[in-house]
């Protein structure tokens, strides 16, 4: 089922999901990014049809359960149809989910690009490789984008919703493909991988090596050199691939959905992210505001009453003396309730300001209210999805 970008401006997430092949959700941690991605995937599968994949990074166990999967794996698995019917939904399409396993994905990549079995095994066994894939923070970002590319070009899905890894800096993963290409194309890499003998003779690199030797030790430098020498055999494949990944992000079938709560820190991060997308000419499809407080808090009349109760609730409590066990307690409760209302009203108005400011930056803005229950089944995801739709 082919999808085309609609010519008129997308005015809802529904239109956005219909018109795009790749939807990338991003935002800082703890804002409900993964849940939003799963909810969008569930909605698309049930309403739009086709084959929809939710590719996530580190889902909470209950989210895996919500998708009806005992555990996510690096392989894509289909969310059973019964999970939909249990939620009272007859899905038009199929929903799949997969989790990103950085280590396994790197290994796959090496297997793909290694020129021969010997090089492949040498790389997989190299201690630096183990270290880089395990600890090198940015490798996570790259692999997420690489995996997306691999799945997208397989043509197995009509829509892929990608939940981005929690990065220190939200734009890290946008830059990951370019950084990876730079890395493999760098002059330093050529220096390091030059045979040791010519290195010594190379006048230009000699000062570097003599200092680097003193600091890092020559053995370590040789280890690095060997590692890069092995990796260089995969150079062309890697660079070509990372350019392709970068192109996919810029493609007109790819859109970004920035998820945030309206608390100061995540909102600031979201704003930063929106700006980063704009600078890179990437398509900001929508903003999703999560865990938003109810609008009742804005009622001016209620605020006036709360103000009065906060100062002196006794006269009002007196009026219901016959309906409560204890008037003194009722006074205190009304007092407490009024203070709490005023507190939350303050938070809500701060959030409304933030919503107005941030919301102006996107064509599509969706708001999900604060929901008391954690999501633990597909019905819950679809309930959230309904707010997004």
């Amino acid at each position: 089922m082919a999808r085309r970008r609609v010519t008129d401006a997308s005015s809802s997430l529904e239109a956005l999901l219909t018109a795009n092949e790749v939807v990338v959700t991003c935002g800082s941690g703890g804002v409900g990014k993964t849940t939003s991605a799963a909810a969008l995937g569930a909605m698309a599968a049930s309403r739009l049809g086709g084959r929809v994949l939710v590719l996530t990074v580190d889902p909470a166990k209950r989210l895996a359960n919500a998708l009806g999967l005992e555990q996510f794996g690096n392989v894509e698995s289909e969310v059973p149809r019964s999970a939909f019917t249990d939620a009272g939904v007859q899905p038009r399409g199929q929903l799949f989910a997969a989790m990103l396993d950085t280590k396994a994905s790197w290994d796959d990549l090496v297997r793909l690009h290694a020129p021969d079995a010997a090089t492949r095994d040498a790389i997989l066994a190299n201690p630096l490789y183990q270290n880089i894939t395990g600890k090198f923070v940015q490798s996570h970002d790259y692999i997420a984008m690489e995996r997306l590319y691999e799945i997208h070009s397989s043509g197995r899905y009509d829509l892929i919703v990608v939940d981005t890894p929690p990065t220190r800096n939200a734009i890290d993963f946008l830059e990951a493909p370019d950084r990876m290409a730079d890395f493999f194309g760098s002059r330093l890499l050529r220096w390091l991988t030059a045979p040791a003998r010519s290195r010594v003779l190379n006048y230009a690199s000699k000062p570097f090596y003599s200092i680097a030797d003193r600091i890092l030790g020559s053995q370590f430098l040789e280890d690095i050199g060997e590692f890069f020498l092995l990796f260089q055999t995969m150079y062309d494949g890697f660079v070509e691939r990372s350019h392709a990944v970068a192109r996919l992000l810029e493609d007109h079938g790819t859109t970004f959905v920035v998820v945030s709560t309206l608390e100061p820190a995540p909102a600031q991060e979201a704003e930063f992210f929106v700006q980063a997308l704009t600078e890179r000419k990437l398509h900001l499809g929508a903003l999703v505001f999560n865990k938003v407080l109810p609008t009742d808090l804005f009622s001016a009349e209620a605020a006036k009453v709360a103000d009065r109760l906060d100062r002196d609730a006794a006269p009002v409590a007196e009026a219901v003396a016959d309906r409560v066990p204890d008037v003194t307690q009722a006074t205190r409760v009304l007092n407490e309730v009024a203070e709490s209302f005023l507190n939350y009203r303050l938070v809500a108005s701060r959030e409304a300001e933030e919503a107005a400011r941030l919301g102006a930056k996107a064509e599509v803005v969706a708001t999900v209210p604060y929901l008391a229950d954690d999501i633990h089944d597909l019905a819950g995801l679809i309930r959230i999805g309904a707010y997004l739709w």
Partner: protein
Amino acid sequence: MVAPVDLLDRKLVFVTGKGGVGKSTVASALALVAARRGQKTLACEFDAKGNLADFFSAAPTAWEPSEVQPNLFAMSMDTEESLKEYLRLQVKIPLVARIGPLARTLDFVANAAPGVKEILTVGKVVWETKEKHYDLVVVDASATGHVVAQLSAPQAIGELVKVGLVRDQTAWLSEILDDASTTGAVIVAAPEEMPVNESLELAERIRTETRVDLAATVVNRVLPELFSRDEEAVFAALREPDTVAALEAAAGGPVAPILDAAELAVTLRRTRSVHLDRLREGLRGVPMLYAPELFTRSHGIRATSQLADALAAELGY
């Protein structure tokens, strides 16, 4: 509640936690508490965004520390500056001209070789501690995950680099980092599902992958308890439709939305307390400080100051 009376009597405190839980606010507030106690304090931001200054309503921080409050200095980490300083102080390389390209190239190796960048980051604050330039260094450390690589950098370097100056440096770094009376880590958590999961994972990793003492947990944004058990019954009675009508008549305006909002507040607190219990259970033995949700409009030094007051009270100052 057991207050970790010794937290700020250490020399080097790493504050970490999932993004969005208020890690930087807590780090700033702890530094402020120390400075107010009379300790000459350095607050250092690892993720060099210069944002730390916002919490003190000061100009953006840089590599060179600036005094943002009496007794309180702030700086941002910069691995290139750290490398230059290291080369100058430790390797005694006089050729300034060579440092530019060298720093660039080493930065590159640092990106590829795990541990090098981390050691330049951690090395700086440990150096400040070793040289006793400050009574206390409070680090607004990297978020979950990366901080483990930073705190275990000396071990990682020890495994990978067998000889050379960098390896020689790992000994004194470890000596300071591993000493619980000198160095401690603080995890900032919010009482919500994912933040608690991540805090528990982080605690486990700090315990198993680093030798840094987990000194305390700060639970941020704890919501106030509105009612006692008796009062809950009163609240339920007040929500009866007839009673609401009587209340509205007496108050001359809408009371229902106020009661609804209280219901939401109670639910929010109840949801959070489940996660708080999980955190408490998982981190038994680690001192826990509670920082209240501050229903405030203020930002900057005003909010930091309010949080500092709350933390000082928790610490028993």
